[in-house]
């Protein structure tokens, strides 16, 4: 599984590339445009992520993870 943290040591949204099929549901609900689609790739803009967890909530495949405050993110 290849999981990308948008920034090390910060509890931001993580994208699991093996599950993401770039449907755009997360982009629709992200209040800060911290998630963008480029062609067929979902990318994140770390400096914009709050993180509020809404994107992870709507993801149909569970490809997004929003660590709870205080929880170590995978690469953290």
């Amino acid at each position: 599984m290849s999981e990308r943290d948008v920034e090390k040591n910060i509890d931001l949204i993580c994208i699991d590339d093996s599950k993401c099929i770039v449907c755009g549901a997360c982009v629709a609900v992200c209040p800060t445009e911290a998630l963008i689609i480029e062609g067929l790739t979902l990318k994140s803009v770390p400096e914009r992520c709050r993180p509020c967890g809404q994107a992870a909530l709507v993801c149909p495949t569970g490809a997004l993870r929003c660590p709870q405050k205080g929880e170590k993110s995978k690469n953290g």
Partner: protein
Amino acid sequence: MMTDERFDVVVIGGGPGGTRTASGVSRLGLSTLILEKRERIGYPVRCAEAIGPAEGIARYIDVKEPFVTSVVNGLTIVSPDGKRYQKEMKGIGYIVDRELLDLHIAEAACSNGAVLRTGHQATGLIREDGKVVGVNVLELSTRRKYRVQSKITVGSDGVESLSPRWAGLKGPTRVDEIFSCAQYLVECVDLPDKYVEFHLSSTFAPGGYGWVFPKGNGSANIGVGINPELASGLTARDYLEKFMDRVCPEGDRKRFVCGGTLLSDSLPSLAVDGFIAVGEAANQNNPFTGGGILNAIMAGDMAATTICRCFEKGDFSSSGLSTYTKEWKRNEGRMNKRFYLAGKVFYSLDDRTMDKVLSALNTREGLITRKGLGSAKLIGVLLRSSPSLLGKTLMKALSARKRSRKTFSGLNT
């Protein structure tokens, strides 16, 4: 060094709404550029592929084309307690091949003179004196950045649209106003052909519904749309597995599709100076069912007509473009508003109340009209079945609508 190009109209997004708009404006001689961030039009498919009513489609598209995979002649609603309410309705709609349909509409636009660029992505709007005067573009394969200047920019970038947010027409979608959806294309199914099925139950579709759409030749799109707020830690894909176990455990699963579909009320305004929003980007899909192909095509035609008039007058202002907003509201927009309120109430029902309501609705003639579920009748039945719930939910829906009527200034990257 960033080069500049000029077109009369630039369309962001190569789905049915955008390409239909492009087709209309390019037919009248306006230079038109369509930007599609994906490499192929219509691919990957993010759609349950049902479209109706048939007579509505026939006004816009020649249904003999190969993109129609099956004709739908009726529908079945299955309540949480398993009761099936069936209604024959000849010509209620079609199941289509979205990839072929999208290609068909895009080819029509190109044969009218529109230029289509796939793998080119809009990254922001260009403004002058507050007016939208073009688009910043990124060519994905080379990372080349360039600018396209235009008199009118059309934002038709679908469910994940950012362009109407950049233009200040809308904000982010509320989590409770998006169906999180997952679907399999299933083959070798032993299911009733020619009828679409809608299954209601919090077990496999909390706050939404499951569907079985027969595609012909023993195949079907089987999927679920859920309210993510009611999902108790599971994803749409998890619920889809439960639904498959219930309706088609033996089917051969060929293709997995997932995505989101908006259930928001129409935007209060669909245009600002130099910019117009079309299709799901403009919340124009049906907020009760999530269906939006025909709505996007209709909106594309309305937008094209308005744009052409604006070119005749040389007026690209918000007020010149407002004809489109008015026309939309007079037609589909009015009905969508009713569907929005009906959906807010309907999808908040618990299973027991849903059973009662469907049973009560079944005894009334005309519950299902050629336009779908009769929203006014639905509200009438709800009023009798559960007046307190209806009042509470309607109040919630109206206050949500009020909140979403604020305009937003998006980030212009």
